[in-house]
């Protein structure tokens, strides 16, 4: 039951981009086309799940026992950066086709603040390892959902006439605002 509520909460109620404002840069940057946003979403799901697994393990079994939890910012960012590198190298060897699809998005993820933010939040919420992994995965699914929705709308906006000053980022942000307004409708779905 707890797991189901974590999943619904992370995907719909407290959507990572539209309600928590994490990962806005890739959200605005790669939402021009549906195809690129699917690639980015896949890469984020992959890395965020792994990152939450590794950072929770490191926090629980290394940082807490030796009492250096104040080092978590430095540790987590280095772990995530090297994790992305490792994933890139392994993927290149094991599954070249998947690497082709996700390849160019992987380095971008290091600067995706959602990955670090969710890892920090999972620790703050005191999730156990399983819950933390589920939280990471479903947050990433929520990110992908918002990204693909915005990309679909932006493809349509390209075709209509829009005031000159509003083209590009401004209209994308206002669209995102309306999407966020729609997602607020999920607020009553579960009690936390």
């Amino acid at each position, binding site marked *: 039951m707890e797991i189901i509520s974590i999943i619904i909460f992370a995907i719909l109620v407290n959507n990572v981009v539209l309600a928590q404002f994490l990962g806005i840069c890739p959200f605005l940057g790669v939402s021009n086309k549906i195809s690129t946003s699917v690639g980015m979403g896949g890469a984020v799901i992959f890395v965020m799940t792994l990152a939450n697994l590794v950072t929770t393990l490191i926090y629980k079994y290394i940082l807490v026992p030796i009492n250096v939890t104040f080092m*978590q*910012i430095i540790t987590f*960012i280095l772990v995530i950066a090297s994790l992305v590198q490792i994933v890139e190298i392994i993927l290149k060897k094991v599954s070249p086709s998947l690497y082709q699809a996700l390849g160019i998005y992987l380095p971008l993820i290091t600067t995706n603040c959602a990955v*670090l933010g969710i890892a*920090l939040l999972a620790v703050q919420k005191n999730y156990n390892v399983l819950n933390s992994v589920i939280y990471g995965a479903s947050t990433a699914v929520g990110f992908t959902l918002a990204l693909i929705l915005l990309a679909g709308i932006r493809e349509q906006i390209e075709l209509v006439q829009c005031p000159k000053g509003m083209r590009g980022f401004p209209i994308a942000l206002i669209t995102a605002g309306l999407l*966020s*307004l729609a997602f607020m409708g999920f607020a009553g779905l579960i009690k936390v």
Partner: protein
Amino acid sequence: MSAIKYLTNGLLKENPTLVLVLGTCPTLAVTTSANNAIGMGIATTFVLLCSNILIAAFKNYIPNKVRIPSFIVIIATFVTIVNLVMQAYTPDLHKSLGVFIPLIVVNCIILGRAEAFAQKNSVFHSILDAIGMGLGFTIALLAMGSIRELLGNGSIFNYKFVSNDAKTILLFIMPPGAFITYGFLIALTNNIKKKFNI
């Protein structure tokens, strides 16, 4: 002459938030009130200033291949300092900014300035650049925070302009208001820049 140019570059011409659209996450997330906006602006400016100084000073010793990890460690160190200091001296602000203080590490403005400016320029110019960029970021945040607090809560810096039972547009302190305000602010900046040919 050129020194002043470094300082003013970040204010309007290359304003990190409104023109380059970097560091968007804190811009949207913490600007529910003018107080939060100023707190975030100062914290980020401090980290930017310190990391710019250190990176400019050590630029000849950092090997090119490992420069990005080195920059991240330097930035993360200062963010940890800011995080602990704010937790001790401004607990309320620390609580309302929440996870966005540790997230200064991945603020693209800081790594961007390290990569694009500090590693190529002298310490003095890097200080000016950091102050200019930090100020530009703080001003943009303050504008966002003031607009959202005024429309959503009827106040600026907790000073009420309307009576307590007046209806305000609550939407603006909720997430959708952040996106909409930011969108209009960028459009406004674009038009000002075009009109005055900056």
